[in-house]
C-alpha cells in the first residue's frame, strides 16, 4: 500500500474519531492498525464505506490471547479491497473482564461465523450478533479452549505417564 493512501487512512479516521488509532505501521508488507477497542466498529465502518478505501471484503477475524499483557485478549481482522488488491490488518486489545465488542455483522455478513468461532475459542462476546453460539466445538463444552490457561491436551488419557516423557 502506498504511503499516500496510508496517511489518508490514518487522517480520515482521526478526523472522525480522535485518538482511535494507537499505532499505524507496516508489518513487513502489511499495513497494520492498532485501534482502541471502543473505536473499532467505527474504524471498520469507515474503511468499508469510504469510497477512497473500499475494503469491501472481510478476509478473516479471529481472537488473540497474550496472557502476559495487561490487555490480554484481542481480536485481529484483515480487510481486502478486491478492486485495487489492497489489504489492511486491524488489531485491538482489551482486558479479559471487558471482552465484549459490538458485532461486525452489520458491516460484513461474513463476520457471522467468524465471530461465532472467536466466541467459541476465546469467549469474546459480540453484542448484537444474531446467533452467538458455539460453531466448531461440541455444544456442551464448558471452556473456551484457545485461552492459554487451558492445557491443549485432553485430560482423560491414562497412557501418558509423565515420568516416561520426562515432563
Amino acid at each position: 500500500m502506498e504511503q499516500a493512501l496510508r496517511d489518508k487512512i490514518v487522517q480520515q479516521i482521526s478526523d472522525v474519531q480522535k485518538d482511535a488509532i494507537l499505532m499505524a505501521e507496516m508489518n513487513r508488507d502489511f499495513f497494520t492498525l492498532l485501534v482502541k477497542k471502543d473505536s473499532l466498529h467505527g474504524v471498520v465502518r469507515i474503511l468499508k464505506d469510504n469510497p477512497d478505501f473500499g475494503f469491501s471484503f472481510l478476509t478473516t477475524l479471529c481472537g488473540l490471547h497474550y496472557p502476559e499483557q495487561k490487555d490480554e485478549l484481542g481480536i485481529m481482522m484483515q480487510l481486502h479491497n478486491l478492486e485495487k488488491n489492497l489489504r489492511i490488518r486491524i488489531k485491538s486489545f482489551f482486558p479479559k473482564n471487558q471482552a465484549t465488542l459490538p458485532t461486525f455483522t452489520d458491516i460484513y455478513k461474513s463476520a457471522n461465523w467468524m465471530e461465532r468461532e472467536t466466541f467459541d475459542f476465546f469467549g469474546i462476546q459480540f453484542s448484537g450478533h444474531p446467533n452467538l453460539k458455539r460453531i466448531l466445538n461440541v455444544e456442551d463444552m464448558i471452556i473456551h479452549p484457545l485461552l492459554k490457561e487451558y492445557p491443549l491436551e485432553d485430560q482423560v488419557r491414562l497412557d501418558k505417564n509423565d515420568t516416561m516423557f520426562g515432563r
Partner: protein
Amino acid sequence: MKLEAPYTMAQTPQGMEGPGFFATTLDQAIGLARKNSLWPLPFATSCCGIEFMATMGAHYDLARFGSERLSFSPRQADLLMVMGTIAKKMGPVLRQVYEQMAEPKWVLSVGACASSGGIFDTYSVLQGIDRIIPVDVYVPGCPPRPEQIIDGVLRIQDLVQNESSRRRNSPEYKAMLAEYGME
C-alpha cells in the same frame, strides 16, 4: 501342479460327519454362517480409511473372507469398522450409527486414533471410541497395514464363530450396554 496343503473350504466346526451328512450344534452352524457372511459398515474418517480401501481392493481382497458386501446402511450391517480420528463432535453420530445396527453386531476399531485418540491428544478429539460404544477388537497401527486390518477381521470372525446364541440376552451383555447408557 500339486498343492502343498489340502485345499479346504470354510473351517468346519466339530460335529458328526458321514457320507452325505454333517451334524453339529445349532450355535456352531449359525456361527459358521455368520462368520463367513459378515457385512461390514465402513466408518472411515481419515488415513485408516485409505488402508481399508486397499484392504477391499483386488490385492488384499477382504472378499476372500466373506465380507465383500459392504453395507452403507447400519440397519443391514453386522460389523462396524471405525477407521480414523473421531472428533468429539462426531461422537454422537458414531453412537447413533451403532445404535441403529441390529443385533448381533460387532465393532472393529482400526488404528491408533479410533482406539485411543492416537497422536491427537487434544480437547477436540475423542480419546478412543470405547468411551462411547463397546469395541470387540482393536487393530493397532498408524495407519495399520491391510494385513493387520484383515487380521482384525479374522479375530472378529473368531468371536462370531464362537459366540453363544444366548449371549446377547445375557445379564452380562445387558450390564455392559448399560455402562454405555444403551439398552
